[in-house]
């Protein structure tokens, strides 16, 4: 079975946290957002009007401010104990956020979680 990376919004983060009880074995997710802050080894991504997510970068992640990026990463605790973030495994630059309708992504996330049989194993 190949690795699945469910598409999520920030509100789903805790459901994929390693500590969350449930049958889920994978904590790797996909999330879409605009890079709004870069701080060396962490960054902040804004996901439409669904709030921010803190990204824990790896040395070779090259994120650019203001770009729309799709992140694949593992849900993890932040070092300073201030909640949950995503440890970046890979990122795809999609250019200007204006070129993508975030509403469609919200619908995709909804559909993918409602129609598990065609998208993700439980």
């Amino acid at each position, binding site marked *: 079975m190949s690795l699945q990376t469910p598409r999520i919004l920030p509100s789903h983060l805790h459901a994929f946290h390693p500590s969350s009880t449930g049958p889920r074995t994978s904590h790797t997710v996909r999330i879409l957002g605009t890079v709004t802050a870069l701080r060396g080894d962490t960054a902040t991504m804004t996901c439409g009007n669904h709030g921010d997510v803190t990204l824990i970068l790896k040395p070779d992640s090259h994120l650019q401010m203001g770009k729309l990026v799709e992140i694949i990463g593992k849900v993890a605790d932040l070092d300073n104990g201030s909640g949950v973030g995503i440890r970046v495994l890979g990122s795809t630059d999609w250019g200007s956020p204006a070129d993508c*309708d975030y509403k469609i992504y919200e619908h995709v996330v909804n559909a993918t979680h409602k129609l598990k049989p065609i998208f993700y194993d439980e």
Partner: protein
Amino acid sequence: MDGGYNNYSSTYGGGGGGGGGFMPGEMNNSPSGGKSDYANQTLRPITIKQALDAIQPYPEAPYQIDSAEISSICFIGQVRNISSQSTNVTYKIDDGTGEIEAKQWIDSMTADSMDTDDAANPKATRGRDGKVELNGYAKVFGKLKSFGNKRFVGAHCVRPVKNLDEVHCHLLEASAVHLFFTRGAPGAGAGAGGGGGVKGDAAMGGTGDEYGAGAGGVGKNLPAMSPVAKRVYQLLRTEPQSNEGLHAQLIAAKLSLPMPDVARAGDELLTAGVIFSTVDEQTWAILEF
């Protein structure tokens, strides 16, 4: 929260267009394995998980997804590996729901005529989309195959995707088509949707008041019927007409459907009692109370 998004609400009226034109159940009636699938020339948008989960009822049989035979399929994913050999290019595609290999054979004979597959033909002029890149997104069109125990896709065309909306649109399209096959066409409460169909039937026996309510969409309380019948009904509803209604020929022309299909749809609607024939048997109007 975890349980919160598992319950499915049955409102999916929005995106149904994707699967138009074929009926569930229609696909299963060719028991002979040798029979080729010329009658089933469909291109179905799917997720990679659906490709991996596709069922083969017996060896060498056509694959089925949601109990419907598949012919050509298409999916969008990220290219995780490109391996170029002398006879083919193999792409490993990952769309978040699974991973599958797409093998595109290089045919030197088509090198000058095919401008759809630039990867197989590096010398061809690149389309405006450029070439398929590692870790970039690509849309694959092809047929599901297997070799030994391994599934792969024999790709007709692999092209890069540069717009994220297209990726999302594809996933929604795959959802809509999946729902079409598992729950019936949208609009009519779809019969298969359990309670919806029963309610529709009740309305049939009753006053039928609710019919007019479904402005724009096909009336919400229509009994379960084939997609073609629904389109015919919809046209009869919306098309300007005299009180003689519309002739089947005209309906066939307007919907670009063959006459036999329209005739069958007409029979279905007549039987359901939602239309009636006016000046002759081929001219129908909506039966309204």
